[in-house]
């Protein structure tokens, strides 16, 4: 009854699709947006210069000089040792009077001891970015490991497996206090 229609040759759809594919391959990039997130300190007002009053024991200065050498506190240090040193500094397990004091804070109805320690990261203008990121990475790793340890103690699970509310609690108990100081004008470029 119905007229027989000739079949449409579909072999060229593959070519069309290939063209489209090539177009998208050329014009797009893989989303590789990952990195270390930070908050810069706001520009301080002249009248609020009370930041200087941070207690000596609560601050550790991590310096990277122009030859990418690392100093933590006042001693030269290899980057592989930095993480453990920072963990000790931030957690102060033995309540040593040289390490940062802790403050009792009430978070979500429970009391926790929160360290007041601040890591101050300083760099020279000649420091290479690679060394800088390597140090930043070690500092973040120290904080992340402390958070993991705390989550295991408190909730019995690792940090990234916790619910969002629990993560917020952990973040408050183990804050990421890394301050990026104003660049020191050492004169040489």
């Amino acid at each position: 009854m119905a007229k027989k229609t000739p079949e449409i040759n579909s072999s060229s759809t593959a070519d069309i699709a290939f063209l489209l594919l090539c177009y998208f391959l050329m014009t797009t990039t893989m989303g590789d947006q990952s990195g270390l997130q930070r908050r810069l300190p706001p520009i301080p007002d002249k009248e609020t210069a009370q930041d200087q009053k941070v207690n000596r024991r609560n601050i550790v200065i991590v310096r990277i000089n122009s030859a990418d050498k690392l100093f933590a506190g006042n001693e030269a240090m290899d980057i592989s040792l930095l993480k453990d040193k920072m963990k000790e500094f931030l957690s102060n397990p033995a309540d040593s009077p040289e390490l940062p004091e802790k403050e009792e804070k009430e978070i979500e109805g429970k009391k926790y001891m929160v360290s007041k320690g601040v890591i101050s990261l300083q760099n020279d203008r000649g420091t290479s970015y690679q060394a800088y990121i390597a140090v930043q990475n070690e500092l973040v790793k120290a904080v992340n490991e402390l958070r993991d340890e705390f989550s295991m103690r408190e909730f019995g699970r690792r940090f990234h497996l916790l619910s969002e509310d629990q993560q917020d609690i952990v973040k408050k108990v183990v804050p990421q206090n890394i301050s990026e100081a104003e660049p020191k004008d050492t004169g040489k470029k």
Partner: protein
Amino acid sequence: MSKFGGSRNNKSVPGISSGSLSDIVFMLLFFFMVTTQMRETENKVIVKLPEATEAAKLERKDLSANINIGSPTRQYQAMYGTDARIQLNDSFKTIDDIRDFIASERDAMSEADRSLMTVNLRVDEDVRMGIVSDVKQELRRCSALKIMYASRKPGGDK
């Protein structure tokens, strides 16, 4: 000769149907459309990101403003030299242009999202910190305080 005992000398092989080829290619196409994003700018500086094991993914990609710092690519080296330069959008800029750049990026966002804007610092690993510090100071002055040091996870490609 024939393995399957066919006594008939049937030499003609049935042609492979290419009808499903287009389906396969379309599937590839959709894969790329979903996993990639439009390249908004052409890279004029070479950026090889440093490695960091603790790198975390940026949640809102649309709320980020990119600042590229690195030495110019080959074709621009004659004009701009090999010193580290800042690239905003599509052209080489200086520190002073960052303020305008941040302002225009802010304007492009909706009111509610402005405070969530993250400045994505894509810096080559061989760059000295001097220029990065300058950029950071300028960002502080513009009160664009959320920043991210773009880095890649070791082992992963690019």
